[in-house]
């Protein structure tokens, strides 16, 4: 289509009374906005309005992560140390991978309850094949066989879901039970295999040299820069506006600073004076590479776009000529494949595989995805969200572990966080489907006072915020968002106070 772009147009609404689209475009050439125009301020404003429209993404999870880190840093002197930071990353790695695996099927509105036992049974295959006392295969061959069995499990699920039409919940529940049996048979009752292959143990327990950490950061920055530039070049070539380039520099700057802080912290000696431990754990770059590939596929290729489309409206995808069955099938295979890698991480972390290995992990994986902002209703969420959600859950486990609380508390808190996250998901979904209304009228006074007060006293924020919400519902007016924030901040403060109080009481007793 050869269309000349002239900035000044006579009248955008001129009826197009000819057959030739080129002629129409010439009389009416300015494009419809794309939300990419304007400077940083406009972009920030557009971002805020998207937030208000319910597209919060990983923001609540990131906020939760920061709150938890601050909280635990106050509660435990061990929490905010380089050693614990490295521990946190390695503890989280397996869950991050499992959360990413499940994201592929959750985006379709499906579920894979067998992802955890898939990791378990394939690692059972792996240890039996690679154990020096057993088959003693080369560990790479053993892992490839384990991976292949994982992919076979995914194919099996995909077949029963897509071809036979059984809900994925039921198919994978069946596998959840059946594969536990298979695992028990492979390992033998009461059996336990120690991981003896140094290369596998190294994934979680060894670190890269310090300089490689910095090289890794440079590579991340280079790739991020390159993809941005490719996007910009294509947009420029098509004659559509680009986001202001300042935004790209800001993004790269944020990655550089955050990455530098992390790598610097991991470059400090976190061992002893005699046995220095420094560097980024090997599991980190492996995870980042898989995260990058997965995100690339989901964001930039047809497969990813069609996955989202099916998750959003399966019928629309079908009518658009998308082969729904195949896309869904592949998603289950990818999920199982990544679950195997998550199992490898866990095996490397724990150092052994027994008959119950991986059994309790799947719900944490689902929780990670949902806490991070992946919608269980399908169609919304990114791999990054699952990774952030996994970090949140790992921080809870890690932090509460350091506080020597009974392990039941850990489960209670994780459950509470999950329900909170699912509520955010459901509510933002409701908001997102409504066209954004712009309330008019005076600002509600209680909302403003309540919001300010919420930072000082929790009860004040909750009470005034609630009053404001009811007033606005009855009489209209602006400030509903502020009022809700006042209530939310108040409740979070109360919860934090509760945790501190419980900790103090338990400490006093113990």
């Amino acid at each position, binding site marked *: *289509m050869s*269309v000349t772009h002239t900035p000044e147009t006579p009248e*955008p*609404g*001129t*009826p*197009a*009374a*000819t*057959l030739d*689209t080129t002629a*129409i*475009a010439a009389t*009416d*050439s*300015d*494009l*419809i*906005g*794309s*939300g*990419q125009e304007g400077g940083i301020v406009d972009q920030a404003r557009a971002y805020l309005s998207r937030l208000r*429209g319910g*597209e919060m993404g990983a923001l609540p999870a990131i906020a939760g992560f920061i709150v938890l880190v601050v909280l635990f840093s106050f509660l435990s002197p061990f929490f905010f140390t380089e050693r614990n930071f490295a521990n946190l990353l390695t503890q989280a790695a397996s869950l991050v991978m499992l959360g990413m695996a499940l994201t592929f099927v959750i985006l379709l509105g499906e579920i894979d309850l067998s992802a955890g036992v898939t990791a378990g049974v394939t690692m059972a295959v792996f240890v039996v094949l690679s154990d020096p006392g057993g088959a003693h295969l080369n560990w790479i061959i053993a892992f490839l066989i384990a991976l292949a069995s994982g992919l076979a499990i995914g194919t099996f699920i995909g077949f029963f879901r897509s071809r036979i039409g059984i809900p994925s919940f039921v198919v994978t529940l069946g596998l959840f039970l059946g594969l536990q049996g298979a695992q028990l048979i492979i390992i033998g009752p009461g059996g336990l295999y120690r991981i003896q292959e140094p290369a596998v143990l190294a994934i979680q327990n060894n670190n890269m040299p310090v300089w490689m950490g910095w090289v890794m950061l440079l590579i991340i920055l280079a790739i991020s820069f390159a993809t941005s530039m490719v*996007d910009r070049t*294509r*947009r*420029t*070539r*098509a*004659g*559509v506006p680009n986001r202001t380039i300042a935004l790209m520099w800001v993004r790269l700057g944020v990655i550089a600073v955050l990455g530098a802080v992390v790598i610097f912290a991991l470059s400090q000696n976190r061992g002893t004076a005699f046995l220095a431990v420094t560097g980024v754990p090997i599991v980190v770059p492996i995870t980042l590479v898989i995260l990058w590939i997965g995100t690339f596929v989901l964001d*930039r*290729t*047809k497969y990813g*776009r*069609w996955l*989202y*489309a099916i*998750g*959003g*409206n399966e*019928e*629309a*995808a079908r*009518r*658009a*000529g*998308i082969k729904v069955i195949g896309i869904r099938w592949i998603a289950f295979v990818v999920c199982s494949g990544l679950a195997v890698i998550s199992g490898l991480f866990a095996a490397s972390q724990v150092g052994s595989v027994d008959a119950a290995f991986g059994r309790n992990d799947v719900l944490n994986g689902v929780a990670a995805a949902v806490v991070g902002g992946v919608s269980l209703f399908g*169609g*919304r969420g990114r791999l990054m969200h699952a990774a952030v959600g996994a970090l949140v859950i790992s921080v809870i486990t890690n932090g509460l572990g350091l506080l020597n609380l009974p392990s039941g508390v850990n489960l209670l808190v994780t459950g509470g966080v999950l329900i909170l996250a699912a509520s955010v998901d459901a509510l933002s979904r409701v908001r*997102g*489907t409504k*066209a*954004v209304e712009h309330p008019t009228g005076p600002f509600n006074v209680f909302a403003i006072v309540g919001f300010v007060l919420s930072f000082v006293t929790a009860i004040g924020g909750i009470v005034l915020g609630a009053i404001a919400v009811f007033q606005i519902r009855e009489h209209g007016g602006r400030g509903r968002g502020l009022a809700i924030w006042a209530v939310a901040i108040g409740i979070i403060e109360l919860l934090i106070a509760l945790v501190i109080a419980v900790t103090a009481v338990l400490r006093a007793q113990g």
Partner: protein
Amino acid sequence: MAESSELRPLIELVDVKKGFGPVSVLKGVALKAYPGKVTALVGDNGAGKSTLIKGLAGVQPYDEGQIIFDGEPVTLHTPRDASALGIEVVYQDLALADNLDIVQNMFLGREETELLTFDEGRMEREASETLRSLSVRTVKSVRQKVSSLSGGQRQTVAIARSVLKKARLVILDEPTAALGVAQTEQVLNLVRRLAEQGVAVIIISHNLADVFEVADYISVLYLGQMVAEVETAKTTRDDVVGYITGAKTQARGAAA
């Protein structure tokens, strides 16, 4: 396209039949649609409108009968056959994915790629130009999520989607069924502009006011038979109601 009385139909159905087991739904139907013209397909519930449309879309092929497209006999066995000819259907329940934006929806299933990755700039430009060519002014940004659009805007996107790849025949299934007055007006204007671009439009509607406002020709289905094919200018609403309810029939020669 010059206005002439000897306009050749873009698509012509001749003696089309379709049955489901013992029930015969289409009993030898003829239909014509002309480029640059809006043909309304009306009829009561169960008259066979949906079955007729599904055959044109290639979703549910006819059992018997001839389909002549642009003067050539063609077969429509799959949706792919239909879209290869430039036949696009805009369904009543708007086949759009809420979680995707306007551009993504318009290009769904036929994304522009380069080296296996999306050429977002090109897709955005084409989407924008298509909407502009239809004089769409109610959409602020083509990167809006469809979930944030009103019913009329969604209908607009669905229609624009069909135009995007130079459709030659667009079939609209009850495009105004769920819309308010102002939005109905918008969509009807859009239908007119679609025809003005030379596209043959078939519109299914229950609303005779809409039909008389937008259509050049009216075809009435009654119990699986085409009972009337009339020019809108040469008929009245009472006549059309008569055809729909079966109280009135046109001369046999014109129908069969």
